[in-house]
Structure formats: structure tokens, C-alpha cells
């Protein structure tokens, strides 16, 4: 701790920090005066709450906002994730396992059956996205954490997930856009949530939203596996001019 302090901090860093302190004070003052905490400040959200369930069929209002009312944000977000996976693929190269940990008994045994349990939980979270808290992103991450167990095992050559993962990732992304385009072509507006509303609260309700969330779940899972694989691989440098 002490060693860190006496290292000469960059003078401009200190100036910036002082300014940050001042700015935080101003921010707190502004928040308390302008945006009172805990009061009902909703304007557009009142509509979402009032007609969210019967117009989209999803009881989880956040899902109806994420996928239907503000679907474009989610599409943008999926693109951000896809772009970051591609960028990491640009920076780091596939290769043998980087963590040359010697054989770890617990890890070897666990990695044989535990991932499938974790993936099961992930699938549950994804599928229940429109009914209870959860959804594509959260479920996708859980699934990928399951597969991470396999990635951190000692491995001589590439993890072999590569091809499948990329294909899944691209297909799901393209599927999402295709569904949105179907909405545009048939129903007149991009990302239109068509399909049978069903009984709100049951699994097969809210039309295309669960399908969209499924696509997102698989996409996020495959993207994370791709990213984690690159981080755990010791790819050699190929001099890209």
C-alpha cells in the first residue's frame, strides 16, 4: 500500500482527481435537488406497465421493454458483443492452453459432469426470460461459465470449440436480424413482436419474444466461449504487417 503512494503520481492525474472530487460534489447536489430519490418519476413507463402484459404477452415487463418496446437497443447491444468477440479474435490468436496447470484432480473430475448441470440452469434462465426474472443475456453468461470449466483444463492444442462457436454465434445473430426483418416485411415495422400472445405467465406465451431471447442466449453463450477461449489460449504472434 505504502509503496504505491510514494511512487510519483503524474501531476495531471492528481489535477484530474481533484476535478473529479469537485464534480462528484456537484453531481450529488444536482441529483438530490433535481431527481428526488424514490419518487415516482415515470412518464412513458406508466404506459409500459399499464399495457405491457396484454400487448406483448410477457409478464416480465423488463423483457417486454428490452425485446419489444426498445428492441433496437438490444439489437445494438448484441452487435456490440459480436464486435467485441471479433475484436478479441483479432487481437489474440487461438492456440494451446495457456494455463499449463498440472493435472488437478478436482478440476478434471468436475469438468466431466458439472458443465452440463450449469448449462441446464442457464437454459432454464433463458427460457423463463419472459415470465420471471432472467433472459437471454443472463442465461447465456451462465451457460458460458459452465463451458469455461472445460477451457481452463490443460490442453495441448486448440480447444476445438472454435468452429462450432463461431458458426452458432453468426447464425444466431443473423437469425435475430432475420426475425426482425420478418417483422418489417410482414408487419410493417422492424422488430415487430408477432406470434401468438398465449396465456401470460406460461412458458409458451409472448409470441416471438422467447424465441428472440433463445437466440440471444445461445449467441451470448457462444460469444463468451469464443472470447474466453482466446483469453485462455497462448496463441503465438503472427506478424500482421
Amino acid at each position: 500500500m505504502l509503496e504505491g503512494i510514494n511512487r510519483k503520481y503524474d501531476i495531471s492525474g492528481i489535477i484530474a482527481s481533484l476535478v473529479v472530487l469537485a464534480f462528484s460534489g456537484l453531481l450529488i447536489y444536482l441529483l438530490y435537488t433535481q431527481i428526488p430519490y424514490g419518487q415516482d418519476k415515470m412518464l412513458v413507463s406508466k404506459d409500459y406497465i399499464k399495457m405491457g402484459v396484454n400487448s406483448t404477452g410477457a409478464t416480465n415487463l423488463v423483457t417486454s421493454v428490452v425485446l419489444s418496446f426498445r428492441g433496437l437497443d438490444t439489437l445494438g447491444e448484441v452487435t456490440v458483443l459480436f464486435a467485441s468477440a471479433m475484436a478479441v479474435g483479432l487481437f489474440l490468436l487461438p492456440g494451446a492452453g495457456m494455463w499449463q496447470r498440472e493435472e488437478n484432480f478436482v478440476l478434471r473430475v468436475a469438468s466431466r459432469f458439472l458443465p452440463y448441470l450449469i448449462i441446464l440452469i442457464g437454459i432454464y434462465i433463458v427460457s423463463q426470460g419472459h415470465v420471471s426474472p432472467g433472459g437471454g443475456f443472463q442465461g447465456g453468461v451462465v451457460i458460458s461459465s459452465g463451458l469455461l470449466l472445460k477451457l481452463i483444463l490443460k490442453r495441448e492444442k486448440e480447444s476445438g470449440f472454435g468452429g462450432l462457436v463461431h458458426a452458432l454465434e453468426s447464425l444466431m445473430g443473423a437469425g435475430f436480424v432475420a426475425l426482425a426483418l420478418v417483422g418489417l416485411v410482414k408487419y410493417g415495422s422492424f422488430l415487430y413482436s408477432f406470434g401468438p400472445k398465449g396465456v401470460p405467465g406460461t412458458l409458451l406465451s409472448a409470441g416471438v419474444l422467447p424465441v428472440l431471447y433463445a437466440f440471444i442466449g445461445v449467441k451470448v453463450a457462444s460469444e463468451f466461449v469464443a472470447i474466453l477461449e482466446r483469453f485462455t489460449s497462448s496463441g503465438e504472434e503472427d506478424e500482421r504487417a
Partner: protein
Amino acid sequence: MNALDFYALSVFLIGLGLMGVFLNRDFVKILISLSVLESGVNLLIVSIGYVRGRIAPILFSKELQASAVGKVVDPVPQALVLTAIVIGLGLLAVGLGMAVWMHRRFGTTDVSELKDLAG
């Protein structure tokens, strides 16, 4: 946790994140403080959406659906934060990719080394 803590906590995180970015010399530490900054802003967005004494926006029962306006928290900030977290994560992945590549390529992740592009 009364009002003071959430707004104060998020502004504290934002301030901490910003200072961390400017004071640190190690790129990985900068990345960590960046994610602290982003989680601070995300916390602020969610706490803006919170209404005292209301429940999460899941309308699981019929009667809740009927009279939900006064009973449920604002769902929109939660949707925004869902997106903002993933965007923060995407940025972090790219940043870490750069950090790992930088460490492999130049042996160090000290940002103060990088100052020959000047003038």
C-alpha cells in the same frame, strides 16, 4: 438503505472509477477502474428508476396486472442497465484483449511507457 446511500454510493463509485483511470499507471488497473466507473453509472440509472415501497416489475398475478401502475418499480432503467452492462462488458473484453496482447508484445502494461507518439 435510505436514499442517501444509493445516490451517494453510485456517485462514490463514479468518482472512484474516474480517479482510478487517471491515477493508475497500469493498464489492467485502469480497466478495473473503468468497470467500477461503469457500474457506478449503472447503479445510478437503476436507483433513479427505484420508487420507495414498490416491487419488481414482474406482473405474475392477474390482480397485479390490473392495478400495476402504483405498485411496480420503473422497468425502463432496468432494461437500459441490462444493455449498458453488456456494453461495458464488451468494452472490457476489448480492453483486456489489448492488455494481454500488449503484455505479450511489450512485456509491460504500464501506460506511462507509451509516450513516444507526441507533438
